[in-house]
C-alpha cells in the first residue's frame, strides 16, 4: 500500500510486458534496476501521471507533518493551500494521462466536497471507469489486487464505501465494501473496516459475525469497536460491556481515543497504514466511526462509566502528555 513501491512495480510490470514476459528471476532483476533509477523507466503516459501523483501526495504528507505546530487559523489556511496545490497537480497528471484513475480520484478528494457531493462525483467516476475498462471482476489469480493496474479502481471502490458511510448510507457502504472483498479477498484497501462499522450501525449481528468469520476472526480496532456498538444497540449490555473491555485491553489507548476523538485529515486516497491495535489504528477507527457513534448519543458516557475505562483514558493522556 506504499505508493512508491507501487510505482516501481508498475514500471517493472509494464517494461516486462513490453519485453514479452520475463522469468521470475529476470523480473526480480528488472525490479532492482527500476528501483535504482525509476525515472528512466517512465515511458508510458499513465506511469508518468502516476509518478506525478505519487510526488503530489508526498508533498501533502510532508506538509501535514507540521500540522500539530500550527494554530487553527494557520492550519486551515495551510490545508486549503495544499489541497489546491494537489488539485493543480492532479490536473497536470490528467493532462498527461486523462484516464488515470488515481489522478481523477485524488482530484475529487482534494475538492473537499460535502459527503453527498463527493459521492456523486465518485459514482460518476466509477461509471466512466467502468465504461472505459469494463466491470471489475475476479481475475484468474483470484484477487484483483494482484494486478497492479487495478489498484486505482479498488481504491475508488473503497473510497465510495467510506463516503457512503459518511453520508449515512450504511447499507450501500456495506454493499460496496462486500463487493470489493469479493473481487479482492486479501482486502488490501481495508473495506472490511467500513463494513464492520456499517453492520454495527445497522444492528445486523448475523452480517457482522459472518464478516468476522470471513477474516478468520483476526480482529482489529474497527471490529472491536463495532462489536461493542452492536451489542450496545441491541440492548445486550453484559455482552456490550465484555466487548468494551476487549476493546480497551486490545487497542492501545483505546479508551482515550474513544473519549477524546481527534480530527483526522482526508485519506489520500488510502487510510494511513497503522499497526494492528496500535493507538494510530484505533484513532482511525474512532474517526471513521464518528457518524455511527453520534447516532448512539449516550454510548461514550456509558463507556466512560464502565470499570476503569474512564480512568484508563485519563492515565493514558497523562502518560503521553495529551490534554484532557
Amino acid at each position, binding site marked *: 500500500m506504499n505508493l512508491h513501491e507501487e510505482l516501481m512495480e508498475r514500471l517493472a510490470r509494464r517494461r516486462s510486458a513490453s519485453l514479452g514476459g520475463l522469468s521470475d528471476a529476470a523480473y526480480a532483476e528488472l525490479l532492482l534496476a527500476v528501483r535504482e533509477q525509476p525515472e528512466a523507466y517512465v515511458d508510458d503516459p499513465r506511469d508518468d501521471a502516476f509518478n506525478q501523483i505519487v510526488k503530489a501526495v508526498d508533498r501533502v504528507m510532508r506538509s501535514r507533518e507540521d500540522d500539530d505546530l500550527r494554530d487553527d487559523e494557520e492550519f486551515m489556511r495551510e490545508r486549503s493551500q495544499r489541497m489546491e496545490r494537489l488539485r493543480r497537480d492532479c490536473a497536470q497528471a490528467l493532462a498527461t494521462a486523462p484516464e488515470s484513475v488515481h489522478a481523477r480520484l485524488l482530484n475529487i478528494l482534494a475538492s473537499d466536497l460535502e459527503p453527498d457531493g463527493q459521492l456523486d462525483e465518485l*459514482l460518476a467516476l466509477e461509471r466512466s471507469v467502468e465504461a472505459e475498462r469494463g466491470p471489475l471482476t475476479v481475475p484468474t489469480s483470484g484477487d484483483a489486487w494482484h494486478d497492479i493496474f487495478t489498484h486505482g479502481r479498488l481504491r475508488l471502490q473503497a473510497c465510495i464505501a467510506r463516503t457512503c458511510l459518511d*453520508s449515512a448510507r450504511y447499507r450501500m457502504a456495506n454493499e460496496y465494501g462486500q463487493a470489493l472483498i469479493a473481487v479482492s479477498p486479501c482486502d488490501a484497501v481495508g473495506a472490511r473496516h467500513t463494513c464492520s462499522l456499517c453492520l454495527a450501525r*445497522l444492528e445486523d449481528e448475523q452480517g457482522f459475525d459472518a464478516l468476522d468469520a470471513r477474516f478468520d476472526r483476526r480482529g482489529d480496532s474497527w471490529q472491536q469497536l463495532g462489536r461493542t456498538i452492536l451489542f450496545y444497540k441491541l*440492548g445486550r449490555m453484559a455482552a456490550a460491556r465484555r466487548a468494551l473491555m476487549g476493546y480497551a485491553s486490545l487497542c492501545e489507548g483505546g479508551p482515550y481515543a474513544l473519549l477524546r476523538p481527534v480530527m483526522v485529515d482526508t485519506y489520500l486516497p488510502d487510510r494511513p497504514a497503522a499497526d494492528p491495535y496500535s493507538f494510530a489504528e484505533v484513532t482511525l477507527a474512532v474517526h471513521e466511526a464518528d457518524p455511527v457513534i453520534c447516532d448512539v448519543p449516550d454510548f461514550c458516557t*456509558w463507556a466512560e462509566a464502565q470499570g476503569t475505562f474512564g480512568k484508563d483514558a485519563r492515565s493514558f493522556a497523562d502518560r503521553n502528555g495529551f490534554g484532557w
Partner: protein
Amino acid sequence: MSYDPHREDYQRLGLRFARSLDGKDPAAATRAFASFGRRFSQNRDSLPQSDADRAFHLVAEATTLIDYELPFADDDRAEKLIDQGHRLLDEALALDARCHDAIRMKLAAESPSFESYYDFLTKGADDVRAACEEARAQAHDESPERALLEADIAMRPYYRWLATQAGKAVICGRNREAIRIGEQLLELDPLDCADVRFTCAIAYAKLEDDAGLDRFAARTKPLRRANTDDAWMQISRISLAHKRHDMDEARHLLARLIDTYPHAAMALTSQKELPDGVFARLAVAPFSEDELILAVSEGTVLLQEGRDDAGRGVLGTWIARHTGLDGKPEATR
C-alpha cells in the same frame, strides 16, 4: 389520533357518573346526565370520582403546562411552568402512587440522560403492564360499551408507556428494540391510538430495511388516514431513497410530501427540533402543518445523520436545499 388527556379525564368521570345513574329511572338519568358537562367543567368536585380519577385530572393539567405551553414560553415563564407542572405531578402521585402516567412524566424530566430514561422505562414496563391489567380485570360495568371503554382506559397508561419506550429506543440508537416494542403495542392496541407505527416507520428507515418497511406499511395500511401516507412514513421513504442514492425517487417523494401538507416548505427548511410530549405525542390535526412539524422533529434522527460540517446532517441539508421556499421542490420549479 394521539392521546388527549382532557378527553380521557372527561371519559373517566363520565363513565363513573353514568354508572352512578344505573338503576335510576331513565328520565331522571337523562336529566342528570344533561348537567354532566357543566358540572365537569365548573364543579368537578361535585362529581363522583376516585383518587385515581383525581390524580389523572392533575396529569391532564400538568400535560397542558409541560407539553402544550412550555415549548412556547420564554425563560422566566418556562421555569414557572416546570415548577407548576411538577407540583401537579407530585400531587397526582400523592393521590395515587400507581399513577403510571405521572411516574413516567416525572422521570422524563429527572433522568440525566436518554439512556437512563430508557432504562427506567424498560425496567418498569412489566410492572406497569401488571398494574394496568389488574385495573382492567377490576373493571365492571353493566353496559358492554361502557365496559369496553373502561377496559381500554385501564390499559392506556401501559400503551403510553410502551409508545414512549419505543420513541426513546430510536433516540438511543436501538432501532430493533423500537420495532419490537412497537409491534408489541400494535398487538395490544390494533387501532394504534398511540400512533406507534410512526415511530416504527422511522426505525425501519434507520435500519435501512426497505423490505421491512414495505411489509409494515402493507400490514398497517388499514390504519392509514385519508388513504394517504402520514409524514413519518413519507419522511422514512425519502430517507430510504436518499440512502439508496436513488435521488430522482427521493426528489419525487419530497415533492409528494410537500403536496400532502400545507406550508410544508417552512417546516422542511427550518427543521425545528421540538421536545417530545412527555404525556404522549402532541395531539394535532391530521395532515396539518403542525403534524408535519412534529414528524420532522421526530425525523431528526434521520435528517441529522452523517458527517456534515454544517451540523444539519446529510439528509437535512439535502431536504432544505431541495425544498424551494415556494413549497415546490427545486427540481420541478
